């Protein structure tokens, strides 16, 4: 039946035609789309900071239950507390001392075993979770900094600010 064959050949040809069309369209989109992605990546601002572990103190100097104020190179204040008497990194905690509510400085109250913010009476657990005051209402907590211990020395991971631009 020549008509059926002819129409089969025709439908085959039109399928191939459509396939060629899709292939062309798809590969054009893929290629130029990739180029657009490259351009977008180029435009995205460079990561502003490197992070690195910096020296805080030797483990022996901080007693159990004691807290020490460390200032990061970019000026952010951090409360470094030793909770347990052990020497492993889990016994230490580094919490930002900036209250997440409106940015006042919190301080550690050893007698009450809590962090206290004097601006609006915000209270935080030793782990930095807010339990009273506006920060608690918003479900906030003090942000934490990673720590590590090497050779009896305590290190904190902070962002290293980029070097100042030199004028030449």
């Amino acid at each position, binding site marked *: 039946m020549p008509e059926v064959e002819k129409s089969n050949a025709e439908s085959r040809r039109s399928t191939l035609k459509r396939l060629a069309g899709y*292939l062309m369209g798809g590969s054009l989109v893929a290629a130029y789309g*990739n180029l657009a992605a490259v351009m977008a990546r180029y435009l995205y601002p460079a990561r502003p900071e490197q992070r*690195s572990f910096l020296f805080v103190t030797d483990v022996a100097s901080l007693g159990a239950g004691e807290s020490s104020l460390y200032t990061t190179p970019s000026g952010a204040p951090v409360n470094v507390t030793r909770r347990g008497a052990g020497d492993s990194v889990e016994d230490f905690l580094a919490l930002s001392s900036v209250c997440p509510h409106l940015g006042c400085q919190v301080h550690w109250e050893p007698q009450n075993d809590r962090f206290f913010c004097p601006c609006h009476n915000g209270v935080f657990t030793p782990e930095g979770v807010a339990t009273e005051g506006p920060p608690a209402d918003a479900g906030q907590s003090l942000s934490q900094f990673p720590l590590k211990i090497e050779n009896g*020395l305590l290190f904190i991971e902070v962002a290293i600010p980029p070097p100042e631009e030199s004028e030449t």
Partner: protein
Amino acid sequence: MTLDQKRIVIAVLAIFFLLSLILVQSIEVARRYEEVGLVRANVAVPATSRNCVDCHGQSTPGIIDHWKGSTHASTGVGCVDCHQARDGDADGFLHYGRLIATVVTPRDCSRCHQQVFEEFSRSHHAAAGNILASLDNFLAETVEGARMPFDPHSPTPGMAVDQVNGFASAFSGCQQCHGSKVALRSTSGGMVTADDLAPDANGLPTNAEALGRVLRDENGKPVLHSGTWPNTGIGRLNLDGSRGSCSACHSRHDFSPRRARQPENCGKCHLGPDHPQKEIYEESKHGVAYRDLREQMNLDARDWVLGRDYSQAPTCASCHMSGNLRNDGRITHDPGERISWSNRPPVSLVMDTDQNHAIVTATDPAERRRLTVDTAEAKRSRMKNVCSHCHTPDYVNSFYRQYDDFVILYNEKFAKPGQAIMASLEQQGLLTPTQFDEKIEWTWFYLWHHEGRRARHGVSMMAPDYTHWHGMFEVAERFYAELVPEARHLAAEAGARGQGAAARAVNQVIDGILARPEHAWFEQGADEAAQRIREAMREKYGQTR
């Protein structure tokens, strides 16, 4: 070309374009990885040291540059962390709002480097300051200088000279390697040292009176005595009672471990006519290999372990301090741990040490066993651990046999006899009590302190020229051509003065020594030996000379 063909062509080309973009992206990723590896993390100045860096970046920019290149800087250890002083420190002063001290002692470093401090403190390096009570000190302070200031004898054109500082040779010579006794100027014009301050176990002075005598400038800064500071001698006696200076080997302010691994670092002090370890190393095959291959020896590695990070050649550090595969890569800051002979004294001593790390001198074997905590053999094994990375046991043991034989030869043929001769002269009262005022005292000093040491150090580190020509040859010459004749001369003089018994006693000692088989050639002639040599030469070469 039909439309369909064109569509296919477009598709193929677009895929090629996509592939080229993928290549571009992989290049970018590789570039990023490389960058992260090559570029050092920016140095962040710790908040506490911000002011220091800002001001000293202008006034002494080199110090800040050095520090920025150090591991301290990349881990956030800044100026204040090392220079901080405590209330009550003798040399602490308020400097732009911070209590600091100029001199950083091993005790300060021990705040973070506790184990190293302990090892170093019991090592012979930390004891280098003990020279201040020795012959060498006498040489520097009295023979070369003067223990009191004295007036100049004529003007120095262009400079107003009040007094001559008799300690200058000691301050600038011996003490720059061995360490000074750090002193603050006192209000009465003298010095205040650790001896006066009597620091406690934590380094704080206990003698308030001495503390009160410390002279301070208009800013309240204690004035360091210029003779004793600057000084980074490795045995420095610090004001807080600690001994040593870490910056002797780990130069400040970059505290480079890389530098401490290189022989040139040790060579600042371990060189010269009386202990030419640097020159000996350079002569030896170890030194030759090092000079050739140092660029490939991974000097910048974090932990520099022999057998893992490098194996081309050992340096001073490799044998005496650094970690290797056989000891789990453990560094020691006590080089004495691996040394089996002490070649410092006139007569070399076997390094069995007691609990105070002092050499056991007892002769009774049972007594030695009782006192010895760490035997010389144990020390030697630790050293052999290093050798065995490149040398087989037979090789190493035979070398040590060569070494032992040589040291014993020196001890028995020249050192002990020399000592005996000098002792008898002293006993018989033929020498004045003052050292170095008679020629023979210099002769003897040269023999054991210079030439004898050269010979022993040379053999210990495989440098034949130092062992022989700069070593034993000169020892022999000094002994036969100078020491013996001078001793005989003194005896003869004594005899002429009427001290016959003394003269006879001395001569008896000398005769006894020279009668021994190893010395017999000297006075009885060695004609047979000469004869044998002549015959051998005739046989071999047809010569008769």
